[in-house]
């Protein structure tokens, strides 16, 4: 059985692109295939001009493609700040040979801690820094995952339903923050979302999937009028609201 069957889409540098489609359309599977968590039977993934098909998820993350999960995967028995610090890239202290020699990494560790605190502050979790992540609520876990992903300083961040369970006001702030990162650092964002308001509101482009294939990829306004999309996904409700 193929969850994703011949899907093709592109994400432009510096864009905010959303991936929508009915449940079981293969959105999360597409994420897994692109980020190396699932091996594709065929097809290619090109990232920043390089063919990265068949690379492992950790390699891709180090190359700048960092994702979050639909069902959050916080490290419950580690503290919130440790969760964030973990994501730091280029940390000499994470190498086995350096583990015994603190002076080789003490400086970087302090930097990382400071940046992690900033990130937590950004998502409103600074007060929870020293708590075990297991004590966070569902929405807070989503936020921690987002902070962790951004901590890795990605060029492309892929978010799987980042707003689910997050209170709407904070959700809007986070979208603004992502938009700002795009302006400042050229961050590219690809996200899966069910809330059409959010999708239509912030996306430069929308990729619509259905039954493992990409139905269309276009700016929001075009997508909304696309009869194929209305049939497969938006349905009567979409027509009524549009």
């Amino acid at each position, binding site marked *: 059985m193929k969850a994703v069957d011949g899907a093709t889409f592109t994400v432009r540098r510096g864009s905010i692109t959303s991936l929508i489609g009915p449940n079981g359309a293969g959105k999360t*599977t597409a*994420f897994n295939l692109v980020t190396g968590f*699932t091996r594709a039977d065929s097809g290619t993934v090109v990232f920043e001009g390089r063919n990265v098909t068949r690379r492992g998820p950790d390699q891709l993350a180090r190359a700048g493609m960092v994702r979050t*999960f*639909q069902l959050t995967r916080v490290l419950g028995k580690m503290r919130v700040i440790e969760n964030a610090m973990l994501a730091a890239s280029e940390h000499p202290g994470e190498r086995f040979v350096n583990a015994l020699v603190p002076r080789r990494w003490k400086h970087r560790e302090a930097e990382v801690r400071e940046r992690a605190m900033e990130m937590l502050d950004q998502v409103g979790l600074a007060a929870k820094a020293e708590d075990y992540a297991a004590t966070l609520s569902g929405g807070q876990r989503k936020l921690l995952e987002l902070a962790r992903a951004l901590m890795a300083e990605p060029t492309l961040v892929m978010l799987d339903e980042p707003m689910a369970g997050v209170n709407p006001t904070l959700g809007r702030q986070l979208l603004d923050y992502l938009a700002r990162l795009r302006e400042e650092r050229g961050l590219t964002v690809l996200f899966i979302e069910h809330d059409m308001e959010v999708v239509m509101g912030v996306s430069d482009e929308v990729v619509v999937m259905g039954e493992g294939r990409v139905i269309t990829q276009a700016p929001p306004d075009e997508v909304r009028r696309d009869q194929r999309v209305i049939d497969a996904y938006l349905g009567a409700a979409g027509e009524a609201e549009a």
Partner: protein
Amino acid sequence: METFLQTTINGLASGSIYALGAIGLSLVYAILKLVNFAHGDFMTLGGYVAFVVNVSLGAPLVVAAAAAVAAIAVVGLITEAVIWRPMRNRGAGVMQLLLLSIGLAFVIRNLILFGWGGQEKRLDIDNTRTFDLGIVRISLIQVIVISIAAVVLVAVGVMLRSTYVGKSMRALSDSFDLAEVSGIDTRRVVTYTWVLGGGLAGLAGVLAGIFTTLRPDTGFLLLLGIFAAVILGGIGNPFGALVGGIALGLVQEWSTNWITPTYKEAIGFVVLILVLLFRPNGVLGHATRTG
């Protein structure tokens, strides 16, 4: 050809014992998410119950086997009531239960050692009788082991496929919580699971005792092979466990055509590792979904 057929018969016989043990282990795992390291010692205990009834009390072997099956089913139920259910209710994790079962295995094995000593015990059966079928010889014991196993395994298969209890067991193995909310009396199904899993372990222990001799570590020594059988068949899949058990017995015996028999056990483990290299979820296992 002759030696091949002969080793095939031998393999079917030892594979039957693996399969009986493996199905019980696999059922308990599938339904209760318990990797039961005490399963081998349940088998041993079954063998010793049969020994007491058969040799100490002088009853016929058939009666002894029935007593062993019943006794281990009861042991399973007792462990469920005293250990596993209370632990599950407290939200114990898979590894916690696994380690607990290792403790239980120590206790059972050494209580057997305490009670009956370390000497080998024999059940009262003529282990010299063989039938000459022309090209191959089959011993009375092999006939008994293979035919009992075949009957029981078919019965279990039919039960799981077609009876309501069997279907409920599969439902519980899919999702315990959903079975509960569907109105299935999960406690009753768990009871049947232990009766079946424990009973099969008891029977496997008796057959192992008939096949060779009984020692306090008889079941433990078989356990690793049983785990191999379960994994080969895909963990939590009772039908796979059956196939895995028979396959393991056959591979071990066939290997003696080329390699010294003292390596027989090791061959089983080598096969296990090789299979997992290429099929990390076992031969008949499903890939677990992520995401």
